[in-house]
């Protein structure tokens, strides 16, 4: 689509079987500086001209041999549904039937015969102006959509890659599944995995307030901050949160914040130590598939108050045990027709095996068919599958 830098550059197609009329209109248009003018003497020729020259505006007579103006209008609208070209139909003042039929066929506007120079030029100018604005808008929309798609690719690269997850699974005897789906093109949720040593691995899930571009930029900031300060990663999740909180407090604008949960799994001592900042609860199952823990250490969100204290809680997590952390988008009341509440989620966790619970969550989020959701959705599900032997329940579920 070439931009209409100024209207004089506009390509105008005049369609009329009367040669005198065509020449009259061409002469009128030239008085305003329009020079890219094409002429067609009937409907069939008009369609060919349209295909060949891609005019910016068509002035169309209705009654012509071979193919009428109504048909030309209809065919262009049918064949090019996304092309919003102005078609100005030239018709008799007294023909109400033609006027109605022309609009039904897809005409943009009418110009009445006998032609008046000022009216014709004014209508052409107005519709080319609209067309120019529409083209600007479409170009802008296309550019932004492309940029957001590229930005989304960049943001996705911050999430653990499949080979990294596979490496963690093999190293620690785990089955890790993470899901992160933004509510718009970009989101403010992120999850991560960081090996600490040969028996401890740190997992985190962060949810920046709001969603969209600004929230996504915060996730990039956090990733860059952690990348530049790798020594911040510690086996103490409360200390880890405290450091991020103070860094975020210095960086994040007023009214923005993050919730976060940090979990350290110790496969030697069979424990899970976690700390949370205003984050939804953590759900834990033992090696018999019984839900043993639904709670969370709570504190203010990150980035609001300097030196906020965080609490670390350690619970048993034997081989075969599982845990599930999620962002609050899962409980959004507009997520679906039957939204989950914290209570109903807890009931599901207590009445289901971990594998079945995960299946229910996936079905609830409809993750096989990504679709628009009201808030970013992220979860991390971790199963200690027990050495190299996969948890049968888990294997069945996956």
């Amino acid at each position, binding site marked *: 689509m070439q931009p209409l830098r100024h209207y004089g550059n506009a390509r105008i197609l005049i369609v009329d079987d009367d040669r005198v009329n065509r020449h009259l209109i061409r002469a009128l248009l030239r008085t305003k500086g329009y020079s890219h003018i094409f002429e067609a003497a009937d409907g069939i020729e008009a369609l060919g001209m349209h295909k060949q020259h891609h005019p910016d505006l068509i002035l169309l007579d209705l009654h012509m041999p071979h193919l009428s103006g109504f048909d030309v209008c209809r065919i262009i609208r049918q064949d090019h549904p996304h092309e919003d070209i102005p078609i100005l139909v030239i018709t008799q003042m007294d023909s109400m039937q033609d006027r109605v039929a022309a609009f039904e066929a897809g005409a943009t506007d009418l110009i009445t015969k006998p032609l008046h120079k000022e009216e014709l030029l004014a209508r052409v100018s107005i519709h080319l102006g609209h067309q120019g604005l529409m083209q600007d808008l479409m170009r802008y929309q296309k550019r932004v959509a492309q940029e957001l798609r590229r930005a989304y690719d960049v943001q996705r690269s911050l999430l653990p890659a499949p080979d990294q997850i596979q490496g963690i699974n093999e190293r620690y005897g785990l089955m890790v599944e993470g899901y992160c789906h933004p509510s718009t093109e970009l989101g403010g949720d992120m999850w991560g995995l960081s090996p600490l040593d040969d028996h401890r691995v740190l997992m985190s899930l962060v949810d920046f307030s709001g969603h969209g571009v600004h929230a996504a930029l915060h996730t990039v900031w956090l990733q860059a901050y952690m990348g530049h300060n790798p020594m911040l990663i510690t086996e103490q999740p409360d200390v880890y949160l405290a450091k991020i909180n103070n860094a975020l407090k210095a960086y994040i604008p007023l009214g923005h914040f993050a919730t976060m949960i940090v979990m350290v799994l110790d496969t030697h001592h069979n424990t899970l130590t976690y700390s949370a900042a205003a984050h939804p609860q953590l759900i834990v199952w033992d090696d018999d598939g019984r839900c043993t823990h639904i709670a969370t250490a709570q504190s203010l*969100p990150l980035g609001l108050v300097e030196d906020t204290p965080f609490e670390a809680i350690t619970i048993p997590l034997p081989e075969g045990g599982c845990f599930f952390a999620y962002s609050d988008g899962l409980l959004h009341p507009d997520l679906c027709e039957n939204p989950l509440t914290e209570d109903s989620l807890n009931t599901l966790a207590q009445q289901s095996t971990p594998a079945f619970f995960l299946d229910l969550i996936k079905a609830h989020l409809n993750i096989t068919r990504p679709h628009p959701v009201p808030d970013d959705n992220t979860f991390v599900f971790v199963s200690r599958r027990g050495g190299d032997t996969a948890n049968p329940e888990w294997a069945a579920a996956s």
Partner: protein
Amino acid sequence: MSKVEITTQNNTKKITLSGHFTAMDHDQFRAILDDLQSGEGCTACAVDLEHLEFIDSGGLGMLLLLRDACIKQKLALSLTNAKGDVLRILDIAKFDQLFKVVG
């Protein structure tokens, strides 16, 4: 979208939120923050949450902006009548450490 109303009673600006208070209400709530500056003679601001059914992180962020505006305007801010999910969300975020939360 939330319905946001602001009234002045005695020396108190009363902001009533109902429905779902989310990031979608940002522009509307910005106008409320601007209105606060015209509250000459007011000494307090009370946010009535009785009819609020849901608040997301964007909504909580706007309450933080309100808190900042009230500090600047020297208005005593309170969140009143929160219940159900809204009370739970405020509780998870420990907003009672930042706001006076009144039952």
